């Protein structure tokens, strides 16, 4: 199966190990991966801050890069969710809207693609740790994807997955929210970290770069002994 990798700007700049793990997992599952070179950023920072025109520029760039792809796979529920917003972003422009719709329809988050498109739930991964999983808001509510990450993680040998209290509450990232509303974001991420600590887990797993950057950033600042990993890093362990 031919798929196009949408690595995301955070993945490309900061989480290259996770991006590589994702590539290796998908290749092992028989996918032939290409990397559309025109890709940059999905435009979410501008879109969510009210800069529609600037978001449209980013979106046009991404649509041009991905419109010939049959499957677009990304290691971020939130960025996948942004692709799904593209048709709405061009509601006054029928031509671009149609192109946007095609891209939106072909876009999948990494775990969603593996479980729902490839129909695979056991990747033969091995990872010995007590861990908990952070469900990202956009993956859960915009993509409506709640089960795939758990299906895959439950089949990881050696992984003890502990339930996370108030897992449905946002971690306080919210893109520019994290820098515009620092005192509020701080309280949100602190509560999230407290719930993670209460599980007794050594590892926190998430499928979204934004949440990862936020929660890990806070955990490291506070010097907590918890490792934060992208789900691709766990699924590629053996």
């Amino acid at each position, binding site marked *: 199966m031919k798929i196009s990798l949408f690595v995301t700007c955070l993945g490309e700049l900061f989480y290259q190990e996770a991006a590589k793990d994702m590539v290796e997992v998908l290749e092992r599952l028989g996918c032939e991966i290409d990397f559309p070179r025109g890709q940059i950023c999905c435009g979410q920072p501008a879109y969510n801050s009210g800069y529609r025109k600037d978001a449209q520029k980013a979106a046009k760039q991404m649509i041009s890069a991905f419109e010939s792809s049959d499957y677009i796979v990304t290691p971020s529920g939130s960025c996948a969710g942004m692709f799904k917003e593209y048709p709405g972003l061009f509601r006054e422009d029928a031509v671009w809207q149609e192109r946007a719709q095609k891209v939106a329809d072909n876009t999948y988050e990494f775990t969603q693609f593996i479980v729902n498109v490839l129909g695979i739930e056991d990747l033969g991964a091995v990872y010995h740790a007590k861990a908990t999983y952070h469900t990202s808001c956009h993956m859960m509510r915009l993509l409506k994807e709640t089960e795939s990450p758990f299906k895959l993680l439950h089949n990881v040998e050696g992984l003890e997955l502990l339930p996370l209290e108030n897992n449905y509450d946002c971690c306080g990232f919210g893109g520019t929210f994290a820098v515009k*509303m620092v*005192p509020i974001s701080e309280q949100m991420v602190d509560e999230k970290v407290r719930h993670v600590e209460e599980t007794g887990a050594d590892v926190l797993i998430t499928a979204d770069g934004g949440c990862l950057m936020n929660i890990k*950033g806070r955990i490291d600042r506070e010097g907590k002994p918890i490792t934060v990993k992208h789900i691709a890093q766990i699924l590629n362990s053996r």
Partner: protein
Amino acid sequence: MAMKIGEKPFFDRVDDALDDTFMRQSMANAQDGLRGKKIAATEGDEAIGDWENWRSAGEEIRRHTLENLDYYLEQLSENVAKRGGNVFFAETAEEANDYIQQVVKAKNAKNATKAKSMVTEEIGLNEALSEVGCQVHETDLAEYILQAEEDDRPSHIVVPSLHKNKSQIRDTLTEKAGYTGTDQPEELTAFARSQLRDVFMNADIGITGCNFGVAESGSVSLVTNEGNANMVTSYPETQISVMGMERLVPTWEDLDVMVNLLSRSAVGQKITTYVTNVTPDVGPESVDGPKDFHLVIVDGGRSKALGTEFQSALHCIRCAACVNVCPVYRHIGGHAYGSIYQGPIGAVLSPILGGYEEYGELPYASSLCAACTEACPVKIPLHEQLIRHREIYVEENYAEKSEKAAMTAFGIGASTPSLFKIATKGAPTFAKPFVHDGSISNGPGPMKLWTKIREFPAPGNENFRKWFQEHKKGDSRNA
């Protein structure tokens, strides 16, 4: 007092809220407590079938009603008048208050009882009536407590006193109302009951809000648990009901659906203890009902949402389901919003009703996690409307110039691959002076806000695109 709460700027209000430990614990407890109850009464209640179907039913009714609002308001007013009630259409809070003042003055009324109503808070009715020598007694337990505290304001649209604990309540009632008991909720409630009994019986005017007007019969439906709305609509000679202009349904059949959505979404009840439906039946013959009835229908800026992307915000039935799941509200509580309408719906409605100058920051007080949209029983796309508000805020030049410049740069960078390539290549070098132990603790420029409370990741040293190319070559070699 009206819609606005407090005079401080937004971030000062947030700071005050974050310092209030009890309030924050109380908001978190309320959210956590209500969550299970709401789920059990909605998607968890098999008896009512698919909750999504109910939400769609609610949305359908609300959409049709708003699209034909003029027609249904005309029908409602005609039916109220046919049964001897008076109807006043008020475009502004002032017009509504003027009319109600006139009614009160004509009766030479000195005492009014009021059942909890957000719209009367919105128009500042208590102050308006006090100006003409009529004291308004709040009778909803929470509002009674806030009134005793004098200038305290609602922090939640369903449970206005959510920010106060029982010992604060005891102290207030001891000081202001001569209470001598303990801080047990049962005892405090019994005191309020005994204090208000005679007030109910002796009031000249009874004031209510309106959960739903029923157009086909000219009825006002009130949804309560305490029984105070029943007292207010039974013993005073005059009843004045104030409704936001969008709060109506075409028929009784539609009322059924809306009451079900409201009770279950607000507090996880199958139905509230009282659903009281008043259809005017006035005149000297009336025994335990009003002899005179007034319905005041308020626009107050709502019409600005009609015909815009915000029209569906008027579908709101004030259940507070969005407030009860909002992670921002959870931490800052109601007063930080600076409006009597708080949480996600407050952040959508307040700028519509009160303008961006006053409430333009509220749409940013959201991480856009969409928990609100998911919870709304009439499917208002709340988080999308928050984004739309931000767009207008930017279009109308309220946003900071530096942010605008940054976003313009982002737009260019995100649509110019050659620039992005330079940026990704340069990032590790650029960031190098700030990197310690693999992350950035004290970032420059806009990164500063991030690193105030968290580490910023150091850009990876490797170029992912290059790695991918080489990796692919490796693949073809292996093949």
